[in-house]
């Protein structure tokens, strides 16, 4: 049943957010700490466990994969509700610090990622996913 997959996703999501809130409270921050990341880890482990026990039929997988494939449309909707007017009104301080921050990080990302290419260039291309719903998007 396709709903099993979506329900599994929902449970991991809720549990992750809950644990993230608990972690935030324990650390004394007024926010969720890595809730979505925890939810993702839960889903990864749930998938590994269920695949090993052989209780993960294709239809259940599709219940999760549909939402994974809906990801780009959701991001487009997210872009359409950014506060662009406020962002552009922020003036030179906002624009300058944002550009400088992004630029600095870009340099560091490039530096770190270049070290990888040297050491792992011979590694075989990993199989990244088997979501049939995505085949079209690529």
């Amino acid at each position, binding site marked *: 049943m396709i709903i099993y997959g979506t329900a599994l996703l929902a449970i991991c999501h809720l549990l992750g957010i809950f644990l993230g809130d608990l972690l935030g409270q324990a650390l004394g921050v007024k926010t969720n700490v890595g809730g979505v990341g925890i939810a993702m880890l839960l889903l990864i482990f749930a998938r590994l466990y269920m695949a090993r026990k052989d209780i993960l039929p294709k239809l259940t997988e599709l219940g999760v994969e549909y939402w994974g494939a809906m990801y780009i449309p959701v991001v487009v909707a997210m872009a359409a509700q950014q506060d662009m*007017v406020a962002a552009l009104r922020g003036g030179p301080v906002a624009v300058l610090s944002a550009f400088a921050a992004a630029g600095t990080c870009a340099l560091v990302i490039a530096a770190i990622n270049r070290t990888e290419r040297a050491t792992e260039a011979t590694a075989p291309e990993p199989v*990244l996913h088997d979501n049939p719903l995505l085949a079209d998007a690529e």
Partner: protein
Amino acid sequence: MIEILQKAAAQNGLVTAFAIVGLIVLLSGQISRRLTFGRVHGSAIAIVIGLGLAYWGGTQTGGHKGLADMSLFGGIGLMGGAMLRDFAIVATAFEVQATEARKAGMIGVVSLLLGTLLPFIVGAGIAYSFGYSDAVSMTTIGAGAVTYIVGPVTGAAIGATPDVMALSIATGLVKAIIVMVGTPIAARFLALKTPRSAMVFGGLAGTVSGVSAGLAATDRKLVPYGALVATFHTGLGCLLGPSVLFLATKALVG
């Protein structure tokens, strides 16, 4: 006629949003294929169209939620809101290869820390050079350069003035937009190819919205790896901003 159609669309907000976003994606796919011959990723164009519509909606309504403030497009707010966004991000974890993710565990943590520290120093420094020389304003604007959620959370915790808060949020928003639009352009320079590189990117570039949209427009397969790290970004920033970073700034400028 038009009124009945408008009512139907407004009352079925989420369904309307699916239809509108579908049209945007279709349109950007055509633009990508016909005008740029596939050189610019369709998702990148779709995100830019979304941002453009957000600007248009913002000027039309004077609200803060772009297109979603217009009653006809209210469903966009639900579809692109935190709930469905996080739901879809979590779902992408289904494609993560656990071995790949584990390989980059340590470098992910390092880039997370750097991704909080570097933007903060740069942001606070620029705030200082523009005359925001007190520790509270510097910290708040610096925190805004981390993400647009860290900025106001930090500012509220240390008692920043409303105009500095607004500036801090604006800084974070501009950064998110730069990451969204700039990532596909800079992908080659950033060496964004492998899961590990996506995790480094997720830690350093920050902002879930920027990282997820930027990676989506670059290579959809890398999204879960970047998002996995980036989701810890805001939490870490909110943890360090009002505490360690504020105290350090205060010790420096008094």
